[in-house]
């Protein structure tokens, strides 16, 4: 597969995953804001912006959700969908026609006046459309194209982005709401429910731990659960399985990617939540994020940005 194509598929998938995650997060916080005893609005959006890794947008606080959705920034939902579509357009012959059609349809629905009108009449419906549009795209991807290299780069993009976003989200949340117990305020309780819901994790959590919410269990579920698709460990297992099936590009660079993914996957497999919490969640998550970044760079060096001399005659 062409290096340029692999790169575009990877970024297409990352951008769309990012749009979907941002849509869930913003949607959930718009919902939490409806409760009268909720935390101050500006504090809330500062937190959302930090979870998404962007600076708090300027302007009145009422407009922040809209800015995060439509803003000029390359991290806004609409920008991410446009970027994903642009990546797909660069490699149109490699994406299946149904995939392209769905991504193009989503793009046409969210951009410009059509998107803003929909937002004005009902932001929740708009964000739901984004999430459903992204889910439909993923479904089409998984069920209509060959699960070959191209698909693996799509998997890598999706799960690296998701793992990174989860780590950021947990970090920001635990920084603010360190503990949760019977004495906690109702508003805090709702924030924890919101955290789970913004990762589509509430129902999954309840199945494992019942509706009894506890901070360490929430962390355990989102970090270490093996069967929930929005846990970091689940993401790492998918990343590792994708990496193992990639071709041997340059031996040294490929070996590095295998080693980096194996190391992080092992750390997640053999850790338990008590140890992590007692050593401090923040440094632990920081370390995870750094390793995810190394894997990202390693993949580029092994498959996309390698020097030509290395492989002539191969």
């Amino acid at each position: 597969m062409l290096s340029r194509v692999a790169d575009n598929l990877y970024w297409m998938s990352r951008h769309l995953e990012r749009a979907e995650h941002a849509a869930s997060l913003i949607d959930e916080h718009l919902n939490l804001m409806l409760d009268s005893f909720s935390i101050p609005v500006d504090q809330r959006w500062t937190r959302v912006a930090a979870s998404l890794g962007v600076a708090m947008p300027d302007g009145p606080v009422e407009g922040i959700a809209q800015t995060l959705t439509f803003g000029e920034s390359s991290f806004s939902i609409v920008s991410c969908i446009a970027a994903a579509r642009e990546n797909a357009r660069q490699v149109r012959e490699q994406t299946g026609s149904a995939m392209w059609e769905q991504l193009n349809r989503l793009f046409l629905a969210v951009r410009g006046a059509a998107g803003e009108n929909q937002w004005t009449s009902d932001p929740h419906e708009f964000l739901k459309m984004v999430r459903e549009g992204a889910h439909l795209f993923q479904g089409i991807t998984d069920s209509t194209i060959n699960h070959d290299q191209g698909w693996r780069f799509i998997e890598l993009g999706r799960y690296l982005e998701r793992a990174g976003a989860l780590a950021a989200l947990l970090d920001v949340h635990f920084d603010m709401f360190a503990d949760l117990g019977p004495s906690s305020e109702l508003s805090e309780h709702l924030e924890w429910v919101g955290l789970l819901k913004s990762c589509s994790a509430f129902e999954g959590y309840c199945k494992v731990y019942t509706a009894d919410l506890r901070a360490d269990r929430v962390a355990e579920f989102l970090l270490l659960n093996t069967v929930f698709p929005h846990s970091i460990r689940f993401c790492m297992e998918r990343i590792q399985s994708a990496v193992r099936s990639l071709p041997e590009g340059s031996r040294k660079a490929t070996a590095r990617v295998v080693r980096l993914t194996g190391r992080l996957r092992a750390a997640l497999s053999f850790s338990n939540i008590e140890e992590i919490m007692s050593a401090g969640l923040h440094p632990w998550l920081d370390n995870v994020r750094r390793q995810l970044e190394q894997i990202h760079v390693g993949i580029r060096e092994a498959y996309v940005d390698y020097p030509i001399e290395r492989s002539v005659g191969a």
Partner: protein
Amino acid sequence: MASPSRVSDRGPFAGYELDGAWDEMFDSSGEPRPHYQELYSRLLAIPADELRRRKQAADLAFLNQGITFNVYGREEGAEQIFPHDLLPRIIARAEWREIEAGLTQRITALNLFLQDIYHQGRILSDKVIPREVIYTCRHYRREMRGIHVPQGRYLTVVGTDLIRRPDGRFVVLEDNLRVPSGVSYMLTGREIVKRMFPILYQSCGVMPIDHYSQLLLSTLRGLAPREVADPTIVLLSPGIYNSAYFEHAFLARQMGIDLVEGCDLAVHEDIVYMRTTSGLVRVDVIYRRIDDDFIDPLAFRQDSGLGAAGIFNAYRVGNIALGNAIGTGVADDKAVFAYVPKIIKYYLGEDPILENVETYLMTDDAQRAYVLDHIDEMVVKAVGESGGYGMLIGPHSSTEQHEEFRRRILADPRNYIAQPVVNLSRAPCFVEGQAHARHVDLRPYILFGDKVTIVPGGLTRVALRRGSLVVNSSQGGGSKDTWIIHE
């Protein structure tokens, strides 16, 4: 010109007018021609609202599939939906056979011509064509002299534009021998029209065109210079800002080959490689959709960032095949076009089956004088341009524009030719809820492999603006599905 007459006041044809142009659907008495009978009666049976609904559904399908083209000179990457007309243009099988025979003859002769002028130049020694006509061609490539091209095939894919005169005869307007485009609109348009009129399609017995991509692939495979079981074939595109990028991606996907850009290719010791996730992979055949000028900055334009340095050397030593070959543009130069009937006679000893549109050479004193006097009746074209750029349509232009072109012709006679304005035939198009007559042409796609193959049909281009004779998509034209049917 006959005064406009109405054919019918029924259904979508209320107000449909005939004039001096040949009408594809109706004869001069206003009766539908036999091969259009089925479409005619079907359209009368479909309620107006239903037709509108189908038109909208078809437009939406084009939008969602992203069937677009880019227009140069506008904001970069501004994609436009390719305007597609709902109603198919129908040609009877018997007439198609003649077109097929005419094009086969023409392409065979043009390939021999290219082989000749880049080698012995017999046709020049025999003074059938003046040397200076060839050597002054913008697209003549001196670098190609004496180079052996794989299988002696200069032409791989050709799109020849035909128009139908008021007397009903198809004549050749121009050949596109470099990188003809539009075939993806033929293929996608068919898919959509088939869905809009499934019953009609079936009952008409339309000849299929879906196998075009397989034919193209095997034609390209036939060029492979190396004896390998599975040669690597790629499509080289200038990238997503090219006006035909949609088509490049479409064809690559249909053929299951890689779509590469210049940056994906690297040439090492006269072998062309592409950069893949498993390292460099050797390339055997390039279906190139970029012009000669841009293919190799070492051999041609140095400022080109679209090709790859070293491709031409790899080509010269026979390590790579290109479809089409470099330098084929010399044979579709609009001045050389005037000599094509002689070219056919010279190499094949046959009279041309398809006539040329009458063409005046501005280098000929008598012809030039005639054209300068009658410029308001002429279409004047720059010889090396295509896509409707750099031309004058006499009857639709101002006196200043006439003057301007007179000056340009006198300043550089070799650069222009003139043709009388041909009143292109008209076919019904679905515009604003009604059928209206619009001018059309026809571009069949010809594949030149072991033998010449033409999928039955082609791209019918439509001048969607009322009265307009310009069918290019860059100039407000659209397309129509083309059905070849048994009568």
